């Protein structure tokens, strides 16, 4: 993994994602672009995995709780060799296994199907607890959205994980500050989020969610508590006209929009 250029991996994730959403006529591209750097750092530098043996017991576990950004996971798994990149063309097609919200059925490397928000963290906590009980050294990573923190089940799990000292659990919150219709602060205010998470007994760190070295530093290092990283991000990151625009939670980039996106990402369309 040392040899992987995570900046290039992030760029490829974004390109695949825009192409998949364009071809599939699907949505949530802004949410995918938001976490492309997080996925690239995790799969490029942090997570242990064997693409030819996806259920290898020695792997670190990864869960995407914000399942609507599933195309990002499909893209990074394809780039990391779990399946052929050509398979990505099937996203959102009739009969496909690559649904809009991430699915484990038939997709190697996906641990958990999600899509309804607030499910990922409790499951990740259960996995982390099992690894502790079985004295296995692997870690569990879960990527959540900030809007999803409205769901009460997350706060049950925040309490649970700190109560059980699950320091093998890392939650990364994609803090792009936009949710489905408006900003998080206009919808159901999350701030002060860092101190909230700290008060819930987590090792809470805030970082730039697009700066790979900063992300890596935030993820690494020993802790005796579960760790939560508030990764400050820009929704739609990397495509000029999508950045910080809530409408790209839903819209599909077609025609000129698609051309411009490819241009912004340095890809010939």
């Amino acid at each position, binding site marked *: 993994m040392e040899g992987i250029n995570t900046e290039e991996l992030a760029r490829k994730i974004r390109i695949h994602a825009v192409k998949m959403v364009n071809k599939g006529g699907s949505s949530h591209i802004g949410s995918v672009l938001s976490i492309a750097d997080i996925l690239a750092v995790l799969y490029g530098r942090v997570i242990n995995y064997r693409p030819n043996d996806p259920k290898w017991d020695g792997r670190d576990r990864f869960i995407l709780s914000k399942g609507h950004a599933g195309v990002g996971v499909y893209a990074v798994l394809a780039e990391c060799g779990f399946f052929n990149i050509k398979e990505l063309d099937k996203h959102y097609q009739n009969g496909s296994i690559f649904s809009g919200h991430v699915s*484990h059925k038939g997709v190697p490397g996906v*641990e*958990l*199907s*999600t*899509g*309804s928000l*607030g*499910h990922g*963290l*409790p*499951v*990740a*906590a*259960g*996995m*982390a*607890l*099992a*690894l502790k*009980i*079985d004295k296995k050294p692997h870690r*569990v990573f879960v990527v959540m959205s900030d809007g999803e923190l409205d769901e*009460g*089940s997350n706060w*049950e*799990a925040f*309490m*649970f994980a700190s109560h059980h000292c699950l320091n093998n659990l890392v939650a990364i919150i994609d803090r792009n500050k936009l949710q489905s219709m408006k900003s998080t602060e206009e919808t159901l205010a999350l701030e002060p989020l860092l101190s909230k998470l700290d008060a819930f007994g987590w090792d809470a760190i805030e970082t730039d969610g697009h700066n790979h070295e900063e992300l890596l530093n935030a993820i690494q290092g020993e802790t005796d508590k579960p760790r939560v990283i508030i990764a400050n991000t820009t929704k739609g990151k990397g495509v000029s006209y999508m950045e910080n625009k809530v409408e790209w939670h839903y819209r599909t980039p077609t025609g000129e929009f698609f051309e411009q996106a490819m241009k912004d990402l340095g890809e010939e369309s």
Partner: protein
Amino acid sequence: MRDALMESLFELAEKDPNIMLLTGDLGYGVFEEFEKTYPNQYLNVGVAEQNMIGVATGLALEGKTIFTYSIGNFPTLRCLEQIRNDACYHELNINIIATGGGFSYGGLGMSHHATEDIAIMRALPNMTILIPTTAEETSSSVVNLYHNKGAGYLRLDKSKFTDASLAHSKNVLGKVNILREGNDITLIVVGGIADEVMKAASELSNKKIECRVLSLYSIRPIDKDAIKMACKETMGIVTIEEGNLAGGMGSAIAEVCMDNKFKPKIFKRVGLEERYSAVVGSQNYLRSYYKMDSMAIIDFVLKEYEKLLK
């Protein structure tokens, strides 16, 4: 039923260290010994049922066999989507135990009356649903759920039907238990309300109507053969369950009959009719109030017989 449950859980936990019992902060006076004996196999997750199923899913994905426990509607309705998306869709061996089925906690009020759980669990594909009538069926249920891969639901009751002759009955997944032989009419029951049904059967026998009484015990998988024979060999079927009729056990029987062209001459579902139970009272009082006790069953059967004989 709780004694039988604990006995079975102890036996299984002793044999298999991967068995875990999760409770949503209920089971005072029930789980202390288990916690002491198997501290690594017991977890009180707090009053947080959504997280309980999520954590159960994470544990099961790592190879654990899970039993979750709470009362009434809490372990099912409160965390229904976690059961559907996490436990069921991922085909995990997560078994939900709800104690206090029906009106077990009658005095506690509507929040604690579990009356829609059967219908709602039945709506989830591949969910095994077991509702024991006796202590013996309870023990078998726990063992069957342990061996059966995939999610399961075990609904327990404060009341139970006791009959020494059933102590050694084999409780096979997907097979009814015959509580009483008879060839006039078939009464099919789940849960401790079997007591009322057996009383009714005994009274009807005095009036020369011999009831066949079946404990359905396993709602899914369901015993189609027993239903077929009931339609063929007796006048028809009366189902009795302590819960809402819409989508419940009686509905399951009706579906089997309609789908397979079994034609019972008499068909009646006894249970709670399209309403929330707002009345307070003991389990027996509420059974009588909502007309699902032995009197109600006897009345119905006698009326139907009169009609048929005219």
